[in-house]
């Protein structure tokens, strides 16, 4: 006999990059630009705090919503850094990665038949999350000519005015696009006008390199849509420690939202997760208290690599838009190729791993997600190999 799987699970196909994994396994000289996590280790002070907490035997559950001290530190950080004011008791929940927070929000806010508009290309978990929650996905493709920013025009064209929720991720995975305050304003107006709840995944907020043509030194500041007038009450903001603090494996994120939403998310969280990993919470607290300089160093490093990679793609004749956030750029594949064919060919022939853009939904076809969360030597070598690949075909 076979055990019958649920329709919900059957409705979600397995991840599109699994096949690439297997090809990559066949070579031992693969340089991976397919990685969605930092190449840095967690700052030592944060690791040390985690170790110390273990030594002291701090291994029990914490409050469902996370240690109060950590929620306070998150509240201070969000207020100082992004002008986001949230009450640590009522409006913040600490989760096992921002991914858990996103899932909780879908389950807390989506009823069967509800429509969730998702700006795409985007991180691959939103769509399955909506399906698992019983909702309908409405893809809203963004366009390269808009630098992959979400516009009212594309929202209207996709029919998002009828949607119940809108999911955004800026700085964006996979494109590296950012949205400035002036880009967010019309989207906020659209959300207010059509009564949309906004789920804003801001996990890459710290990795914002340039806003409005700032000079060559890095240091653009991310704007959260929740800070725009009338948006706080209809927005859930997600953030976490994976990207800026290089803590992916420690699994720690959080959501900021009005009290009733956080309360609802917590109702699911308390029955499913109980509390986010305690050791990771100690690491996160230290990360917020003492690791600003290290974050800055990593951000500067990513920014130098970003400029390098963008320049190299242009030199070898591949079009790439000026990505200004996260640690990705999103070059176009040459004419005559699909993203998948090109990604497979450079992996098989040159041992360079990148993710084909169509994996990330509508608007991603014809592009590659190239991660520069890798050392400069590897980046130089990888770009050289792609250049050789193109030259062989000239």
């Amino acid at each position: 006999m076979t055990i019958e799987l649920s329709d919900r699970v059957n409705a979600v196909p397995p991840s599109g990059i699994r096949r690439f994994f297997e090809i990559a396994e066949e070579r031992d000289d693969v340089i991976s630009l397919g990685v969605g996590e930092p190449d840095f280790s967690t700052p030592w002070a944060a690791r040390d705090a985690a170790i110390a907490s273990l030594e002291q035997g701090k291994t029990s559950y914490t409050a469902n919503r996370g240690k109060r001290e950590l929620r306070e530190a998150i509240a201070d950080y969000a207020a100082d850094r992004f002008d986001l004011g949230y009450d640590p008791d009522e409006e913040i929940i600490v989760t096992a990665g921002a991914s858990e927070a996103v899932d909780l929000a879908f389950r807390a806010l989506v009823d069967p038949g509800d429509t969730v508009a998702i700006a795409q290309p985007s991180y691959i978990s939103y769509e399955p999350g909506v399906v698992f929650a019983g909702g309908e996905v409405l893809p809203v493709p963004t366009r390269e000519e808009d630098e992959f920013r979400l516009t009212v025009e594309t929202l209207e064209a996709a029919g998002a005015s009828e949607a119940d929720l809108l999911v955004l991720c800026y700085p964006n995975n996979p494109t590296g696009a950012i949205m400035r305050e002036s880009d967010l304003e019309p989207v906020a107006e659209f959300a207010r006008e059509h009564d949309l709840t906004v789920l804003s995944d801001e996990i890459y907020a710290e990795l914002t390199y340039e806003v409005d043509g700032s000079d060559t030194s890095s240091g653009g500041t991310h704007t959260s849509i929740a800070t725009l007038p009338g948006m706080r009450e209809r927005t859930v903001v997600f953030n976490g420690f994976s990207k800026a603090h290089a803590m992916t494996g420690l699994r720690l994120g959080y959501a900021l939202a009005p009290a009733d939403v956080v309360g609802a998310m917590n109702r699911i969280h308390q029955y499913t997760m109980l509390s986010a990993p305690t050791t990771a919470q100690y690491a996160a607290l230290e990360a917020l208290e003492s690791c600003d300089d290290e974050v800055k160093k990593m951000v500067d490093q990513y920014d130098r690599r970003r400029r390098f990679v963008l320049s190299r793609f242009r030199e070898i004749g591949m079009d790439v838009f000026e990505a200004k956030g996260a640690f990705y750029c999103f070059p176009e594949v040459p004419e005559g190729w699909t993203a998948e064919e090109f990604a497979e060919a450079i992996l098989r022939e040159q041992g360079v791993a990148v993710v084909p853009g169509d994996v990330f939904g509508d608007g991603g076809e014809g592009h590659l997600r190239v991660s520069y969360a890798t050392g400069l030597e590897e980046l130089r070598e990888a770009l050289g190999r792609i250049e050789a690949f193109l030259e062989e075909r000239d």
Partner: protein
Amino acid sequence: MSERDVLESLRENARYSTADIARMTDLEESEVEAVIEELEAAGVVRGYQAVVDWDKLEDERVRAEVELNVRLDRETGYGDIAERLVQFPEVTALRLVSGDYDFDMEVEGDSIREVSQFISEKVAPVPEITQTVTHYVMTSYKENGIELGDGEEDDRLSYSP
């Protein structure tokens, strides 16, 4: 800020080509060359050296950290003593420091005997120097910000979302 960006790139790896630095800083290659020339002319950048892990080489290299205490008088300041000590090729670094002693001096030689002789015959007799304490380096774990361990494998999955 471009000067600072170029400097940071060089500090990270002095062998980056000017073309690569130009790519990283959004400058023209000729501008990068000009900035580097300025940094060198102004004495900001004093040189470029390899960071060597001597344990990986056959030939022995003996290094020592030497604490020096000195006595000053009306005619002799720290700078005067330092000026004499830096002349010795054996001295690879010399810094005035706070705390229990005055100078922190790094010395290199081919053997313990050579280094010891240098300290006892060349350094200790300097009249202003009242005391030397020599610490031979046994193992080095980090030099100029570079860890000398075996390095960690990148254990990340080749693809992740």
